C-alpha cells in the first residue's frame, strides 16, 4: 500500500527531556491511523514532529518521498497538503469563523475576496456552521470551535488531515458526531487521517490501524487494528489500555442479563 508519511528513527523531546526514541512509523494513503497511549506517552510530541513544528534531534520525517526538513520549501510544500485540527480548535480569536477559514486560502491561493468567501462558506457548511460564519470563536461552544477548526483544516482540500485529541472536553454525543464527520471525510474524499486520541470509543469507531506509544519505552509498543490489539496482544500494557473497554463490556453484559 502506498505510504504518504513516514517517520524514520525519530528521536526527540522537549528541551533536554527525551520523549521519543527510535520511532519508526508509516502512514498509508487513505487510512485512518490512530496514535494512542496513556497521558504523557508522547502522543502530542509525535504529532508536533509529524507536523514539522519541532525539528527532530535525529531521524527523518518523510512526506511523499522527501524529507520535510531538507529545505524550507519542502516543509512549506508538505504543509500546503496538510490540514490540522488542534485540541482547542486554535482559531484566531480576533477573527470571525469565516475569516479563520479564509486564512489558509488567502495564503496559498490568489482567489478574489468574493471567491474566498464562497469557498470558506462552503467549507463551513460541510461542518454545519454556515449560520455562525460571522461569530467570534469565543462566542460559540467548544464543539463548534473544533468543527470550525476542521473546516479551516479542510479549506485547501488536504491530502492528510491531523486531529489532536478531537474528543477532549466534548460530551459523548458531540464527540460521536465529530467521529462521524471524520469517517465521512475519509470515505468520501479519500483523505488520509491521523488522529491522536485516548478515547477508546473513538478508536474503535473510526480507526483502521492503531499505533500505541508508551512513556517507558519512549516509543511505539504496538501496531495493528484496534480489535487485534485488544484481543490478541501479548503485551500486558496494551491489554491494560484496551482492558478498560473490556471491563465496561463485561459490566454492560452483566446488566443486560
Amino acid at each position: 500500500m502506498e505510504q504518504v508519511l513516514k517517520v524514520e528513527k525519530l528521536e526527540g523531546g522537549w528541551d533536554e527531556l527525551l520523549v521519543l526514541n527510535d520511532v519508526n512509523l508509516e502512514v498509508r494513503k487513505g487510512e485512518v491511523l490512530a496514535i494512542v497511549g496513556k497521558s504523557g506517552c508522547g502522543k502530542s510530541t509525535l504529532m508536533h514532529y509529524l507536523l514539522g513544528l519541532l525539528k527532530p534531534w535525529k531521524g527523518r520525517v518523510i512526506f511523499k518521498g522527501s524529507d520535510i526538513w531538507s529545505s524550507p520549501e519542502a516543509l512549506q510544500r508538505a504543509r500546503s497538503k496538510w490540514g490540522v485540527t488542534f485540541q482547542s480548535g486554535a482559531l484566531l480569536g480576533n477573527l470571525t469563523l469565516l475569516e479563520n477559514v479564509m486564512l489558509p486560502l488567502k495564503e496559498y491561493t490568489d482567489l478574489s475576496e468574493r471567491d474566498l468567501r464562497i469557498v470558506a462558506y462552503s467549507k463551513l457548511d460541510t461542518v454545519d456552521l454556515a449560520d455562525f460564519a460571522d461569530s467570534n470563536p469565543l462566542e460559540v461552544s467548544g464543539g463548534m470551535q473544533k468543527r470550525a477548526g476542521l473546516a479551516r483544516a479542510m479549506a485547501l482540500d488536504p491530502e492528510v488531515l491531523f486531529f489532536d485529541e478531537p474528543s477532549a472536553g466534548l460530551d459523548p454525543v458531540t464527540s460521536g458526531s465529530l467521529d462521524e464527520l471524520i469517517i465521512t471525510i475519509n470515505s468520501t474524499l479519500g483523505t488520509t487521517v491521523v488522529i491522536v486520541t485516548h478515547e477508546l470509543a473513538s478508536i474503535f469507531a473510526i480507526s483502521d490501524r492503531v499505533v500505541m506509544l508508551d512513556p517507558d519505552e519512549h516509543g511505539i509498543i504496538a501496531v495493528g487494528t484496534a480489535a487485534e490489539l485488544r484481543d490478541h496482544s501479548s503485551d500486558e500494557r496494551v491489554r491494560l489500555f484496551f482492558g478498560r473497554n473490556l471491563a465496561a463490556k463485561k459490566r454492560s453484559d452483566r446488566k443486560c442479563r
Partner: protein
Amino acid sequence: MANPDKLVYSGFTLSVHGVLEDNEIDSIRDFVDEHKRSIFDAGKLILDFSDSPGIDTVPAVVLYGFCKELSRAGVKVSRNGASDVIESLFKTLAKFDASPEPGKRKLSIHSHFELLGENVYEFGKTLSELGHFMGETLSAFAGLVLHPLKIRWPMVLYYMEESGFKAIPIVAVLPWLLGVVLGYQAGYQMRVFGAETFMPALIGYSITWEIGPMLAAVLVAGRSGSAYAAEIGTMQVREEVDALRVMGFDIFSYLVTPKMIALLCVMPFLVLLANLAGIFGGLLAGSMFLDLSPGTFISELGKALIPLDILWGMLKSVVYAVIIANVGSYMGMKVRGGAAAVGKATTAAVVLSIFMVIIADALLSLLFIHIRPGLSM
C-alpha cells in the same frame, strides 16, 4: 468539650468508640490535653480501636502526633484491636513523617554561587535567543519592505492606534511634569549663582537628549511591550501560533513585523511630543517661579539647541521601537503552559525591554558625543 461518647480513658487504655470525624479534632485535642498529665505519669498507653470501624485522616494525624510526643518522652505506646484500615493509615502517616521536609533548600555560599551562575547562564541564553529572534524579524521585515503590499496594513494601523495614538495623553503629561520639576529645581539651584538664564539650556539638553526619548520608551514598553507579550503568549497557549505555522504562515511576518512597523511609525512622534511637553514644563516653571519670561526662555533655548538634538532623540527611538516590539513578541513566543506563564512573560517583557533600552541608550550616547558639534572635550 471532649466528646465523652467517642474517647474514653481508663487504666492505661484510651479506647476509641465509633468513627472519629474531621470536625471533632478540637474536642480530641481537649481530651488529649486533659489526660496528658496522667498518661505521662502512667508511662504507658494502649490505643484501643476494637470498637472503632475506622477514623478520618485528620483526627488520625492528631492522635499520631500525640503518640509521637509520648514516645519521645519515654511513654510506651501500642495499638490494640486496630482494623487493617486504621493500621495502614497509621503506617502511611509514619512513612511520610519519616521523609525529610521538602522545599527547604540548604543555603550555603556554594549554592549561592551555583544559583548566580545558573541565572547568568540563563540570561546569556535569553539574550542570544533574543538576538536570533531579532535577526529573524529584521529579515522578515527586509522581505516585506521589498513587497509592501504583503504587509498586514490593517494590523499595522490597529497597533499604531493602540500603541501610539492612545499613548498620547500619558506621553504628554509625564514629561511635562518632569519638565516642571526639573526646571524648578535646577533654576532654584542656579539662582544662587545668578545663573538662572542657563536653565532653559539645561532643560533643552536634558529633555531632548535623554529624558524625552527615554521616558517615551519606558512608557511604550510598559503599555505596549507587555501587551504584545500577553497577546502572543495567549495565542501560544491556545495553540494559535502552532496553527498559523502549520498553515504555512511565517509567524515573523504575520505576528511580529506589524507590531514593529507600527512602533517604528509612532515612536519618533511620541518622542517629539515628549520633548515638546517637557520643554513646555520647563517654560512654565521658569515663568512661575524664576521670573523667566516665556520670551526669554525660548530665545535662550534657541541659542542652546540645534536641530540635531531633536532629530537624534527621534532617531534613537527607532532603535527603541525595534527593541520593544521584539522583546515583547519574543517573550510571548516563549510562553509554554498556561495562563500563569503569560503573566510571567508580560513582566519579563517589560523588565527586559527597559533594560535593553537603557543599554542601547548608553551606547548611542557615546556615539552622540562624537557626532554633535560643540560636545567633544
